[in-house]
């Protein structure tokens, strides 16, 4: 656990969210932050994205909710959270000063997304909002908001109008053309995009001849999805000027650097927080050490520095 070399400037600007370093933690893998207090000083990382919030508190799916798969895991928790009002009243005040908090918003209708964004606006201690666009949209027959440009566009427009906070849109990987979705976010005024969310997947209990998860389908996360995530971040970075927050299977500093090289301004560590609750701090320190080792004065200079592209 070496200290970050002071010679390297680690600060980055993620669409108006100023981060002391480019390493955040991903929504749904970091609770409301305080759960990590025994293991990690949250001021050591760029910030964290809290568990997605809905208007009302919600219970999740019945068990089984998770399944281990090769180099990854499936989860189908589904919306379980304390609700936006309890988050503001109880969870936010428990977070130490100096910690950058991004609130995540998850709903089933556009007007409800916008209402959650309104309630988070003007609340002290929230640096930005991340819209989780991977929720099924009831009025569009259950398709994810992030899966169709004509459904995603109105969502970004409405939430952009609902808040002055920096607005990130977390994109689904379950699409044919990620560049198209990124361009929709840019056109509708998003401050940045986060990708990828979990990859829709299925695991089967062969003895019982049943799906392992009670929900049948789940989201695959962990190192298994990292090459897919890198590809999609690279494609999105070529499609838009928006800053990108790269997510997908980061398990160490080198993984985070790969996302920066592919065009991400910052990254989020997700599933690896479960294995090692201090991993995000180790990744933050390791990215700075990488920059120092390779002669970069600023971590931001690594963004998009991938060379030798062929194909």
């Amino acid at each position, binding site marked *: 656990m070496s200290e970050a070399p002071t010679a390297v400037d680690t600060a980055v600007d993620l669409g108006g969210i100023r981060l002391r370093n480019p390493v955040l933690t991903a929504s749904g893998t970091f609770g409301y932050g305080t759960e990590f207090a025994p293991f990690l000083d949250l001021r050591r990382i760029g910030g964290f994205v809290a568990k997605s919030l809905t208007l009302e508190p919600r219970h999740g799916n019945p068990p*089984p909710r998770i399944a281990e798969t090769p180099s*990854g895991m499936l989860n189908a*928790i589904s919306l379980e959270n304390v609700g936006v009002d309890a988050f503001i009243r109880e969870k936010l005040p428990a977070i130490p000063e100096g910690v950058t908090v991004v609130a995540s918003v998850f709903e089933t209708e556009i007007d409800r997304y916008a209402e959650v964004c309104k309630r988070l606006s003007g609340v002290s201690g929230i640096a930005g909002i991340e819209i989780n666009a991977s929720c099924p949209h009831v009025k569009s027959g259950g398709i994810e908001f992030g899966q169709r440009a004509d459904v995603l566009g109105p969502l970004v427009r409405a939430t952009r109008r609902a808040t002055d906070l920096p607005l990130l849109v977390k994109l689904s990987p379950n699409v044919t053309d990620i560049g198209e979705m990124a361009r929709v976010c840019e056109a509708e005024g998003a401050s940045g995009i986060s990708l990828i969310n979990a990859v829709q997947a299925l695991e089967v209990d062969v003895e019982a001849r049943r799906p392992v998860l009670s929900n049948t389908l789940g989201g695959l996360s962990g190192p298994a999805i990292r090459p897919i995530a890198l590809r999609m971040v690279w494609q999105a970075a070529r499609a838009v000027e928006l800053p990108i927050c790269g997510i997908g299977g980061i*398990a160490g500093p080198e993984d985070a650097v790969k996302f920066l090289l592919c065009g991400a301004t910052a990254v989020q560590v997700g*599933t690896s*927080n*479960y*294995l090692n609750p201090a991993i995000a701090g180790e990744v933050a320190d390791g990215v700075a050490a990488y920059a120092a080792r390779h002669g970069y004065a600023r971590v931001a200079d690594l963004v998009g520095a991938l060379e030798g592209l062929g194909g």
Partner: protein
Amino acid sequence: MTDRSNPPIRAEAEIVAIGDEGGANRRLSLRVTGWPGFDPGQFVMLSPGPSTAVPRSDPLLPRPMAVYRASARGGAADVEILFKVTGRGTALLGAARLGERVRVVGPLGRGFPQPEPGERAVIVAGGTGVASVYELAARLAPAIGVRVLLGARTRDDLLGRDDFASLDVALEIATDDGSEGAHGVVTDLLAAALDGDGEARIYACGPTAMMRRAAVIAAERRRPCIASLENPMACGFGVCLGCAVPLRKGGFALVCRDGPMFDAATLAWEGLS
């Protein structure tokens, strides 16, 4: 045995003893520096396989393991884990060698609640559930009457018999095939024990069917029953939300954060796998 008296740590531990407990059962003793102590019933998350320069990604998740017992060794402690080799993660732990290092996070969860004044303890455990209750028996035995009922499929699968026999407890054993102790299931012993003891508090840990039966037997006799659940989980400290169990009043509790002990009467047993 109060809540949260031992703040969890993250540590690399050295394997200092390995035991073959018969069948697929193994015992590991892990030397953990800075171990804060534990309450009976708490658990650790143990990463399968030794730590190396490159983080292991397959199998990905750590395994929850009850702390069997721990003994101080200067500034460290030797933490004992009993487990059964059932899959890839436990196979790696079972194949580990002396001197190898594993990653530990813990102690986690809440310990067993204390008996009320005047109560005696009846501890019923089956399979690897035995690992969760040894320390409870060891700490209660000097103060109150403790009856321990251990169950297993067969004699070779029976965990911890000699350790429990060395405690000042009334020990009874049941095996499914009758190869040791009573021929039958351990909950039959429970029913008999409770019929002779109106002041018992039941502590149960084992297969879901065993605990569910223990809960029914206790409820029929209006005795409190504490069930210690063993569920798959990814983190162990309340963030993955993978270890949810349904409650009778509706909604869910997390085994890692709200348990692993639950008043058996509060659980919706029909929703537990």
